[in-house]
């Protein structure tokens, strides 16, 4: 599988994402934000974490309108896979590829800690290596991860089973304590209508090596490379 990682001024998790993808067997290239095209044959676009444009105006607002995003929109419209992590999720929301917005954490603090996520469904390109109802351990590091959308949008996301992950405790229970940023319905990640675009606040790419405390993030990247191999 060919993955393209978009790098904006202020992206800082791009190399973590590249490493996780290579470990899962993908070939990875970087794309600068001012490009108008993705590398030929790109299967997966990754918008990495970081602080694009210093979070000026709103997180992801300026990156969401960068030149390369037209190519990313076209890729998504054609059914191509797009993964946005942390700042990448904020960019997907600001660019209109996913509904809603990530607001300042309800407690007004930057949060940085281990986090369990409930895997809501395992029939997508991003999660087919996980088990339904599995609680995976990853980490979060953000100041603006408080998912918000109007009531109709949230109802639609729930009705269409487009919530990808929810913040949960180690046993998989959805609790208020586990939802540290205050997201509506404990939403940690959502899919687009066609399930080919995923945005999430936590960092699966940082949990791919036992050296740093766990490998629960591997499932996502192995799902992606595995599902592409199946399709080919």
């Amino acid at each position, binding site marked *: 599988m060919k993955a393209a990682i978009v790098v904006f001024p202020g992206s800082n998790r791009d190399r973590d994402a590249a490493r996780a993808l290579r470990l899962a067997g993908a070939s990875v290239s970087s794309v600068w934000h001012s490009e108008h095209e993705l590398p030929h044959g790109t299967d997966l676009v990754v918008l990495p974490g970081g602080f694009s444009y210093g979070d000026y*105006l*709103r997180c992801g607002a300026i990156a969401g309108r960068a030149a390369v995003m037209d190519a990313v929109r076209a890729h998504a419209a054609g059914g191509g896979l797009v993964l946005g992590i942390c700042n990448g999720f904020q960019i997907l929301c600001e660019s209109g590829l996913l*509904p*809603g*917005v990530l607001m300042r954490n*309800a407690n*007004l603090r930057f949060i940085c800690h281990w986090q369990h996520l409930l895997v809501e469904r395992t029939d997508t390109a991003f999660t087919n290596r996980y088990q339904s109802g599995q609680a995976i351990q990853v980490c979060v590091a953000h100041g603006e991860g*408080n998912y*918000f959308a*109007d009531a109709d949008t949230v109802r639609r996301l729930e009705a269409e089973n487009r919530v990808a992950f929810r913040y949960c405790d180690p046993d998989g229970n959805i609790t208020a304590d586990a939802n540290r940023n205050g997201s509506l319905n404990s939403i940690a990640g959502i899919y687009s209508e066609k399930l080919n675009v995923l945005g999430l606040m936590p960092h699966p790419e940082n949990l791919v090596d036992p050296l740093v405390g766990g490998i629960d993030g591997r499932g996502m990247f192995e799902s992606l490379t595995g599902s592409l191999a199946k399709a080919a």
Partner: protein
Amino acid sequence: MLGPETRRNRETVMKARVTVTLKSGVLDPQGKAIEGALRSLGVEGVASVRQGKVFDVELETADKAKAEEALTHACERLLANTVIENYRVELA
């Protein structure tokens, strides 16, 4: 000596103010924190605070309709996230 660009700008600059505010019903934790800080400072009679943004924009045009159109475009495309924010354009 002023270049032709600068001379032209001086003749045709219009000033505008764009105000972006959170829609009602959208939680504003920063506004709440400011509200609490004002109370703890002893500022009396503060019922609530909502935080917003102000953009002072200079436009190279003398045409009010065009200026308004450009600013509305700017708000819809970038300055406001209309999922959570409202905007107001005022021309000087």
